[in-house]
Structures are given as structure tokens and as C-alpha cells.
């Protein structure tokens, strides 16, 4: 059966190469008579990948430890849910999942009227690019990263690391891969229209693939937010973002795609930046592969390092080829030649916003690779720690939030569209900053970002008063996303710099204090649950005389993982100060070592993150509707 699955992967490679070659041959001949045949090959590829995936899922379900992959990530006691989701626990399975996601995305697009409405030459170019990507996946799966490698079956598998047995971590990788994969269809179509030089306004690639762009961005956002939440709840260090290379790797495609989403508004409304948008969309996909290269190529030292670097070289070649094609497309695509309005217009500010987002992507990319780059001229490479990212990226992030706050009140071609509201916004931000300053929140970047975040909330309040807003699901989606971003900003601006941690050593009945909270150790208990032993501490937390709650952090020793102890943090959730406790252990005198943290407004990060991931789905309901934000613009002279 596993030979069959490997054969399916090889069939994918053959079909992608053959069909891609046929598409190029047809383009070269200037004909399109083989187009129906070329398109049929994608069905074969998708079915082949579905069968291979089904075989892997079946193997995971029935503990087929004769597969190296199954033995590496599951064991006999792992619940079915975690066993099946081990599909993407390792490098080989996740590459198969990514390939399947891209193939299914291709099918979804192929059956749409949008695809059939395309010019045959454009379709040929589209399939040529699409099959090139599928061939690359299949090459990886059949050579360097095959999930169907066999072995003599052990009695039991290694099991999934307990830290990964968490819903946040289970859904974080597939969401990222769905995000990465979702940009494939729009990227290929953007390139196809650029290379075929055939596009009319109604058939523009970004209109035809709008759901793909939106869903891919949402998946990517959700993947990043879930990863941060998992780090916060599972790793026990109390943070959610450490600027680790692998975290940065997922942020780079997100920044580029977010920039593209905003420059696409300019193209959609004003017919400008067409060539730039093609490059941006292709760069999004290329950066997704680059992210995988960073994660799996063994190129940088990271606390994460999945895989053994075997896929590094092919990924490098693929990324370089993608970059060449992206910039080559600039010379192929039609130049509109329409001048951009000034920076005091909405289209100008959106352009500047894209600059800042792209600058952030470049800075994060260069900083992540700096240890490798500096090796070019020194034998003692330097790297950049968290402090660098915080001092460079966070101010740029604050600028982005200010731009977001101002942008809705600018007319498309220049000037303010509602002076009173705009001055109200400025006043709101200034007063917010002053109040925060007076209350002791004086870190400049956090202060500015929080004030701008409050400004975004003000914007949302003003717009909600406009009843026309509720007639447009699209506008509501945009507004919801921006309100979500406001909450994310406020959450980060407070929970980042103003969080406080304290390590306490407590005997039973003893108390420790942090930021006016008193934590008293009630008792320490030991016990056993299926698969692990645990030590749990119960602490009562009071603010003054008022009991806030009981917090119960644990340390666990799992049967499968030797003497390694795993921390299970506990929190007292709050929309204000969240109390977070991580059990560090017991000292020689059996006193409790516990880290208590106060995290101001941290839950607004998760609330805002959820809004950011879910509310833009409203845009899918009426994809052609025009945002109410710009409704008034359309009838104004440009």
C-alpha cells in the first residue's frame, strides 16, 4: 500500500512535468489545442495526492509503525485526534499537506466560471506556472522528503511530544500551510496575465481570485495568532513572540501579503500599480517558500529547526527562480502609466503603508539572516537579538497603526473627506496619549501605538454610526478587521512592555506579592493521570482583600518522555490584568518555585486576533460590493 502511495507521488511528478511541458509547448507554438488535455492532468494530480494523503491518514490511524513517519510522531496511546493530525507533525507530512492544499486550490479555481472565462493563452501560462509549483512539491516528496519510507516496525512509536498536544499547535501548522498554499492560484494567475499580456478590467487576476487571496491571508493570520497563543499557554515563559527565525519566517509572507492587499485597493479603485501588484503577489508566494527554507533548510540556528536541512538546496533554487520570474514579470506586464495621487490622498497613504510593511519584511529578513550574511566578511558572525527587533520593528509597527487610523478619512485622490471627524480622531489620539502618560505608561513606542489603536477604535465607533455600513458586508468585514487590529495593537502595547514577572519561593501558607496582587500557596499535590504523573500547586490570588481566584499550575512527567518535566501554566483570565502562573519546580526543601506574571490587557490580543481572522470572511459574502468607506468617493471627481 505504501509503495502505491509513493507511486502516487511519483505520478504527480510525471503529470506535472508533462502537462507543464505541454503548456509551454502550446505557448511556443502559439496554439491552444492541447489546453483541455493539459487541464485534465490536474485532476489526476489532485486524485493522486488525495490517495497518498488517505494512505498516510490510514497508516496513522492503524498505528502502521512500519512507516518511519508514523513511528516518529505517534504511539499506541496517542488519541485518534492527535494521531490523525500528526499528518502535519513532521516535515514529510507537512510537505504532502501543503501540496494537497495547493492542488485542491487549483481544482477549486479550475471549476469556476472565472477560470473558464480566461483567454486560452492566459490559461496556458497559468497552468505552466501552476504545474511548475506542483512538480517542485512532487520532486521534494519523491526524493528528499518522502513520508512513505519503510522500516522494520518497532513495538511502539515515539509519540507526539506533549508540548505539541495542544489545540493551538495542532491547527497552527496547517493554517500556515493553507495560507502559504492559498496564494499559489492568485500568484500563478497574476504571472499568467503579465506574461500573456492579456487582461481586461473585469478579468483582472485579483478580481477573479479574490476569495483565494482573502482566505489565504486569513489562514496565514490565524496560523500566526494561534502559534503565538500556543507559545503563551504551553511554553511557560509567559511571552508570545520571541523574534525567533521561524516566527519571523511566517511573518515575512504575512507582511508582504498585507502590503499587497492594500496596494490592490489602489489598482481596483484607480487602475494603478498593476505591475507592482503582480510582483507583490508573486513575492508573497516566493516568501512562503523562503519561510519553509528558513524553517527546514538548516540555514539559521533557531530554537525551532524542523527537519535535517535536506530540502535546503532545492528550496534555495526554487526561491531564486521565483524571484527571477517575479521581477521578469515587470518587463512583461502592461504599464498603465497613470500617475499616483499625492501622499495626502488615500491612494498615496496606502502606497506609503505598503512601503512601511515591505520595509519591515526586508528588515526582518536581513536581521534573521544576519548571522549568515556577516559570515561573508568575518569568522565571528554577529546576530541580532530581541532588543534589535523591538527597537526597530515596533516603531515602524506604530507608524502603520497611525496610518491605518488616518487613511479612512482621506479622499481617494487627496484631501480630507470629513474634517470634523478627522480632527476628532487627532484629538482622541492626543488625549489618549496624554491620559496614558499621566497614568505612568510612558514608553514612547507603546504610548504612540496604544494611542493610535484607540484612534482605530474611535474610527470604528464613528463608522458604526453610519447605517449604510450595515448594508455592506464587505465594509463590515474591513471595519471588523481594522477593529481587530486595534485590539491586537492595544494588547501588545500593554502586555509587552508593562508585563511583570516575579519568581517566588513559597512554603505552604506563605505569600508573595507582585503589582499589588498577593499569591498564597494553599497546597501542593501529586497525582497520576493516564500517560503522566503530575505535581500541581494551588495558589490563591488576592488584590487587596478581594480574592481574584485560584490558580493551579502543574508540572508533568509523561511516561513516554523519561524524566523530562513539562510545565502546564494556568491563568486567571481577565480583560484587564491577567494573572499567569508557571510552576518551575520544588527546591531542596520542597518549597514551591513558581513564576507569577501580571499581563495587562493580554487577552485583547487574542480577541483582536480572532476578529482579524474571522470578520474579513464577511467580504466573501458580497465580493463585488464596494466598501462603504469608499462609497462616497466613487461619485467624486478624481
Amino acid at each position, binding site marked *: 500500500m505504501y509503495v502505491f502511495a509513493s507511486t502516487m507521488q511519483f505520478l504527480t511528478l510525471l503529470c506535472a512535468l508533462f502537462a507543464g511541458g505541454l503548456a509551454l509547448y502550446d505557448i511556443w507554438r502559439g496554439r491552444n489545442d492541447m489546453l483541455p488535455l493539459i487541464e485534465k492532468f490536474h485532476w489526476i494530480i489532485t486524485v493522486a495526492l488525495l490517495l497518498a494523503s488517505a494512505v498516510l491518514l490510514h497508516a496513522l490511524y492503524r498505528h502502521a509503525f512500519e512507516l518511519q513517519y508514523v513511528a516518529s510522531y505517534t504511539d499506541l496511546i496517542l488519541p485518534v485526534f492527535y494521531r490523525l493530525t500528526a499528518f502535519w507533525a513532521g516535515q514529510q507530512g507537512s510537505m504532502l499537506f501543503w501540496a494537497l492544499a495547493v492542488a485542491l486550490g487549483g481544482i477549486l479555481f479550475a471549476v469556476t466560471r472565472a477560470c473558464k472565462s480566461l483567454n486560452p493563452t492566459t490559461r496556458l501560462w497559468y497552468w505552466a506556472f501552476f504545474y511548475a509549483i506542483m512538480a517542485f512539491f512532487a520532486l521534494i516528496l519523491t526524493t528528499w522528503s518522502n513520508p512513505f519510507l519503510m522500516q522494520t516496525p518497532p513495538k511502539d512509536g515515539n509519540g507526539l511530544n506533549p508540548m505539541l498536544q495542544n489545540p493551538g499547535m495542532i491547527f497552527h501548522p496547517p493554517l500556515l500551510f493553507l495560507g502559504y498554499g492559498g496564494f499559489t492560484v492568485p500568484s500563478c494567475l497574476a504571472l499568467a496575465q503579465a506574461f500573456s499580456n492579456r487582461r481586461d478590467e473585469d478579468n483582472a487576476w485579483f478580481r477573479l481570485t479574490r476569495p483565494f487571496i482573502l482566505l489565504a491571508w486569513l489562514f496565514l493570520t490565524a496560523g500566526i495568532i494561534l502559534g503565538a497563543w500556543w507559545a503563551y499557554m504551553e511554553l511557560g515563559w509567559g511571552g508570545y513572540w520571541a523574534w525567533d527565525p521561524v516566527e519571523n519566517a511566517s511573518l515575512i509572507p504575512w507582511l508582504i501579503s498585507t502590503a499587497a492587499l492594500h496596494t490592490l485597493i489602489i489598482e481596483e479603485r484607480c487602475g494603478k500599480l498593476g505591475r507592482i501588484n503582480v510582483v507583490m503577489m508573486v513575492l508573497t508566494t516566493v516568501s512562503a517558500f523562503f519561510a519553509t527554507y528558513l524553517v527546514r533548510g538548516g540555514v539559521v540556528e533557531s530554537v525551532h529547526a524542523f527537519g535535517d536541512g535536506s530540502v535546503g538546496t532545492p528550496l534555495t533554487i526554487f526561491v531564486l527562480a521565483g524571484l527571477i520570474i517575479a521581477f521578469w514579470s515587470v518587463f512583461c506586464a502592461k504599464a498603465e*502609466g497613470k500617475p499616483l495621487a499625492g501622499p495626502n490622498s488615500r491612494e498615496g497613504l496606502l502606497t506609503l503603508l505598503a512601503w512601511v510593511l515591505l520595509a519591515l519584511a526586508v528588515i526582518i529578513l536581513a536581521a534573521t539572516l544576519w548571522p549568515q550574511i556577516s559570515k561573508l566578511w568575518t569568522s565571528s558572525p554577529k546576530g541580532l537579538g530581541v532588543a534589535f527587533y523591538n527597537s526597530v520593528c515596533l516603531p515602524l509597527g506604530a507608524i502603520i497603526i497611525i496610518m491605518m487610523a488616518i487613511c479612512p478619512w482621506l479622499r481617494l485622490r487627496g484631501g480630507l473627506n470629513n474634517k470634523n471627524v478627522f480632527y476628532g480622531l487627532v484629538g482622541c489620539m492626543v488625549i489618549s496619549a496624554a491620559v496614558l502618560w499621566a497614568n505612568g505608561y510612558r514608553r514612547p513606542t507603546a504610548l504612540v501605538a496604544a494611542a493610535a489603536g484607540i484612534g482605530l477604535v474611535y474610527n470604528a465607533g464613528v463608522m458604526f454610526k453610519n447605517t449604510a455600513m450595515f448594508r455592506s458586508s464587505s465594509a463590515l468585514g474591513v471595519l471588523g478587521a481594522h477593529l481587530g487590529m486595534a485590539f491586537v495593537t492595544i494588547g501588545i502595547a500593554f502586555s509587552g512592555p508593562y508585563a511583570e514577572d516575579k519568581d517566588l519561593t513559597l512554603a505552604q501558607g506563605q505569600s508573595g506579592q507582585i503589582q499589588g496582587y498577593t499569591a498564597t500557596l494553599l497546597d501542593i499535590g501529586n497525582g497520576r493521570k493516564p500517560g503522566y504523573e503530575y505535581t500541581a500547586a494551588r495558589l490563591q490570588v488576592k488584590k487587596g482583600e478581594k480574592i481574584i481566584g485560584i490558580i493551579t499550575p502543574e508540572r508533568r512527567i509523561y511516561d513516554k518522555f523519561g524524566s523530562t518535566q513539562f510545565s502546564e501554566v494556568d491563568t486567571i483570565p481577565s480583560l484587564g490584568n491577567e494573572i499567569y502562573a508557571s510552576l518551575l519546580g520544588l527546591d531542596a526543601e520542597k518549597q514551591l518555585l513558581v513564576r507569577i506574571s501580571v499581563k495587562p490587557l493580554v487577552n485583547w490580543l487574542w480577541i483582536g486576533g480572532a476578529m482579524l481572522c474571522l470578520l474579513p470572511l464577511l467580504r466573501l459574502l458580497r465580493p463585488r460590493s464596494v466598501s462603504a468607506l469608499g462609497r462616497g468617493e466613487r461619485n467624486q471627481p478624481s
Partner: protein
Amino acid sequence: MSHNKNTPIYLIAFLLFLGGVSYLCYFGFSENSIYFLNVAEARTASPDKLVNARLFGTVAEDGLKNPANGSGVIFRLEDKDNTAQTILVNYVGPVPDTFKPGAEVIVEGGISGKGYFTAKTLMTKCPSKYQKENRKS
């Protein structure tokens, strides 16, 4: 391309933006860059490079101690390729779950006057790295 009267404005804006970002990066880099070294490189590095450095290595099997009071750990960090090269590390703070002899770790801090490396942060590899470990077992 038709003439755009806004081009000079965007050019100036771009230069200002570039200048600002370059200043931020220069300031951030000069204040916050640290040496990234393996243990073998750290053993031969001049002391000034170890004032603020990030070391990569493996926790040695022997020499692991817990401090008498509070959380933390004292251990020997050995080079991944040459286990004869080690550095004594003293870390105060919460010890990550997956820290144990043989674990790949990253420490950040500096050499103290007492001759050991005082780590402000201790990070262990992400559990997905277990792929390699699993293969060995």
C-alpha cells in the same frame, strides 16, 4: 509614462523614509548586535566578544547542578561537533521543559569575572526537533 507631478514628493518621502529606517537600523544594530558563536568558537574568541554573546551547543551529560536556592541551573555547554570543548554556564531563571543532558540549547549572556558564562536567557530547541532524536532511537 505620463508625467507625474507628485514624483518629486514621493522621492523626497522615500528618501526621508529610507533615512529614518536606516537610522533606526543603525542605532538598533550598534546597540543590540551580539556575537553568535559555537562553543569551540567561544573558547578561542577574544574576551571582548564574550561580553555579550549567544552560544549554541549541547548540554553535557555530567556537571549538571541545580542552585541551592531559587530556580536555575549550572551546566557544561559542549560543542556540538567537538565535545571536548566545553564552557561552564550559570543560568538563573525558569528552566525550559525540554532542558536535559544531551539537549541542544541556546544561551545568551556574557562571561563573568569568575570564568563562567552567565546566561540571561536559556532556550531549548523546539520539540519538533525531536524528529532527529526520534530517528536515533
